[in-house]
């Protein structure tokens, strides 16, 4: 365009408001139904309106230039554009204001296309258009310039949890040049995956996965790892979390088994040991704590396998009943060769695998667990893991027969249905049971036979009762979230009915917690397999990376603001506030007198206005959406004063 010279800045808006109204024809879309010239003429009578112009396409360059000129010349200091829906062009015109050197928030949009010309016809269309423009002008006259809220971000991420999710998230952030502190409660990196051997369906080893991740984490200069460490103090908000981390020796014999296994292995610090993980540092002798500041926090606190109650499927009644993770370890440590699996010196000629142990529990059918809850969810990973184990046994020990008892086979993922097909091809025999008619595990009455007998009412055999004598029963236990009650309480974050951490929205904001700046990764959110955990960790990391890389968080200025000249400190707003920590009462001294006043933390404020409605003095308002603005809009909607012939 013509004027390349440094633009003169638009003058500061005056309190009274000099409103410019710009009405778009939209190439006939509006002007065919609405008399645009008449709207302009009537708009000029509205108090505060100093100019009203029309244009064929207000969004075109000439249209925008018209607005910019009026702002720069000082003719107007508030702008109303009456055109299509704000969803299409509100940002266009706010940018035009910016280009004019004006504040983009002294702008109001009137929707004359979607709300008028496309739905109404005849004179009433023009009358309605005028009322909408007048109402917009009334609001515009009361608009104030606003600045986006800028929060500086501490250039550091804290990752809680040293399993696959935590390590993956830490690595991704470090690779983007961010400083990461990783805090792990146990002395080991590797989490639950380190308790496995091969991973379904492709068969990568846990050793390879954990060695890769832990090696990279420990080798990366940007990642600081603290094991035996927990977060015990938490305050602040996005960009500025202040945490206290405590390192202390683990309680009693918590990790004695793993520590013993480690010492027997002869491996050193930083090396992977099966069923242990990677121990990066020695255990602290005495408690020590330190403060930490972080811009974002990634929760990767993981899961634990469901522990069956004694007697559930005869667990603990017979030594031959084990969980799948227990079996994986037994099998991995089994000695000897031959074509029959040997456990504890006994040949396993037949093994029963039972699905959905501790998962898909139904109220009224299944008994509640110790804590008085039911795991109503599917644990997602057990079907594939169980079939993988079945195939592995059939492959290595062809004389060990496998009987698989399921409710639904859920091999949903890539390469998983093949596990099911392969199990069938390897002569695994399947039985299907209904919820509430779970297989019974009994002592085999036949002393010559194997020790256990599994009875089932088999859906596949037309509901017949079948009996299978076996040497071993493996319970495919599900996943439960780790107990992180302490963190949940400190951070004030929500957990779902399933006791997993609850994201804001599974699709819109799937890795974010309701507390801004806290992200969640992996099985603390829901059961996942290793690949899915890494994807979830990547998704959490990318959100964290965006916050950290920018160095600041810019929030909409549409947040609550207290008018201290009106506030009497009733606290009603604090009571009504929906965002924990956004509003508080503070003690001030005014003219030597102690008074209480409401204070907004704009970083925490959602801008919903729940506080506005309850203030008896109307001393609190959402900037850009004040109650007075809305009231004046209603006044103009009901007024006939500026309508021609009215």
């Amino acid at each position: 365009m013509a004027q390349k010279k440094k633009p003169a800045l638009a003058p500061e808006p005056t309190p009274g408001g000099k409103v410019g109204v710009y009405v778009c024809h939209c190439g006939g879309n509006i002007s065919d139904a609405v008399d645009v010239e008449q709207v302009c003429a009537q708009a000029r009578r509205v108090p505060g309106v100093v100019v009203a112009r029309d244009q064929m396409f207000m969004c075109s360059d000439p249209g925008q230039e018209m607005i910019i000129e009026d702002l720069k010349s000082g003719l107007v200091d508030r702008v109303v554009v009456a055109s299509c829906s704000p969803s299409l062009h509100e940002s266009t015109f706010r940018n035009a204001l910016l280009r004019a050197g004006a504040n983009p928030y002294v702008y109001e949009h009137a929707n004359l296309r979607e709300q008028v010309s496309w739905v109404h016809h005849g004179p009433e269309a023009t009358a309605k258009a005028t009322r909408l423009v007048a109402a917009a002008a009334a609001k515009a006259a009361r608009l104030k310039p606003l600045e986006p809220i800028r929060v500086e971000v501490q250039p550091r991420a804290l990752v809680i949890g040293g399993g696959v999710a935590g390590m993956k998230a830490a690595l991704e952030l470090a690779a983007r040049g961010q400083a990461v502190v990783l805090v792990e409660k146990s002395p080991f990196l590797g989490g639950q995956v380190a308790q496995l051997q091969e991973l379904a369906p492709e068969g990568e080893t846990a050793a390879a996965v954990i060695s890769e991740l832990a090696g990279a984490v420990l080798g990366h200069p940007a990642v600081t790892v603290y094991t035996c460490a927990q977060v015990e103090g938490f305050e602040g908000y996005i960009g500025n979390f202040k945490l206290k981390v405590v390192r202390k020796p683990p309680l009693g014999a918590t990790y004695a088994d793993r520590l013993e296994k480690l010492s027997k292995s002869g491996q050193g610090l930083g090396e992977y040991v099966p069923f242990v993980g990677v121990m990066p540092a020695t255990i602290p002798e005495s408690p020590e704590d330190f403060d930490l500041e972080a811009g974002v926090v990634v929760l990767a606190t993981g899961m634990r396998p469901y522990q069956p109650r004694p007697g559930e499927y005869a667990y603990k009644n017979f030594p031959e009943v084990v969980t799948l993770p227990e079996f994986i370890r037994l099998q991995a440590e089994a000695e000897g060769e031959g074509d029959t699996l040997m456990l504890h010196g006994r040949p396993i000629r037949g093994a029963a695998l039972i699905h959905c142990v501790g998962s898909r529990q139904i109220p009224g059918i299944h008994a509640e667990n110790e804590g008085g809850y039911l795991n109503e969810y599917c644990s997602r990973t057990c079907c594939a893991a169980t079939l993988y184990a079945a195939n592995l046994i059939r492959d290595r020990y062809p004389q060990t027969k496998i009987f698989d008892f399921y409710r639904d086979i859920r091999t949903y993922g890539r390469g998983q249905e093949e596990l099911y097909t392969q199990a069938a091809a390897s002569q695994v025999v399947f039985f299907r049971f209904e919820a509430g008619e779970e297989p019974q595990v009994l002592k085999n009455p036949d002393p010559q036979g194997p020790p256990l007998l599994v009875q089932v009412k088999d859906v596949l055999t037309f509901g017949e009762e079948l009996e299978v004598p076996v040497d071993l029963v493996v319970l495919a236990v599900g996943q439960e979230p780790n107990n992180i009650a302490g963190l949940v309480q400190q951070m004030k974050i929500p957990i779902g009915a399933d006791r997993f951490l609850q994201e804001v929205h599974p699709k819109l904001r799937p890795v974010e917690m309701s507390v801004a700046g806290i992200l969640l990764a992996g099985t603390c959110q829901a059961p996942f397999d290793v690949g899915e955990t890494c994807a979830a960790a990547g998704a959490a990391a990318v959100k964290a990376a965006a916050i950290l890389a920018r160095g600041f968080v810019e929030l909409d200025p549409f947040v609550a603001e207290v008018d201290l000249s009106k506030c009497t400190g009733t606290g009603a707003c604090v009571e009504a506030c929906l965002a924990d920590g956004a509003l508080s009462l503070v003690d001030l001294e005014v003219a030597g007198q102690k008074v209480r006043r409401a204070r907004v933390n704009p970083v925490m404020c959602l801008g919903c206005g729940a506080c506005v409605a309850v203030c008896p003095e109307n001393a609190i308002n959402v900037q850009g959406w004040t109650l007075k603005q809305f009231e004046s809009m209603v006044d103009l909607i009901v007024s006939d004063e500026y309508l021609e012939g009215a």
Partner: protein
Amino acid sequence: MGAGKHAGKILILAEDACAYPGADATGQGHMSYSADTYILRVKASVLFPEQFYLDCFSKGIAGIIIMSCGAETPYPGAYEALARRIDRVYVLMKERGLDIRRLRLTAICTVCTRAFLKEVQQMQDLVCQLGAPGSEAAAAPAGAAKALQEQ
């Protein structure tokens, strides 16, 4: 319709995340509805105090439809708080002899064009039937009409 058509203005509070785009979708579909409707774009209707609704009626607004996001609101807890407030507004409306059907709380999604039209039509019919706000106060308990005038 005819004479009753312009019985009074209807104010629509359309929440920005759902109902406002829903009204846009209705417009894109060129689905016609009463021109006596005025849409205020709001972030969350929980912002408005009880008095706002009463004031609207005393200013001459004949019907108000709150088109919220329902449970899908981006502000957790806002819908419940709003519903509680509207219950209180109903009490106040009754005290003033206002037919409580003049205020309606509903949820409209971004593509709920037919639900949008239905709500508008129902309110339009009701407003035609009831007339200007306060005209039903004659039949209301004594003092109610006076209370309304004092607003």
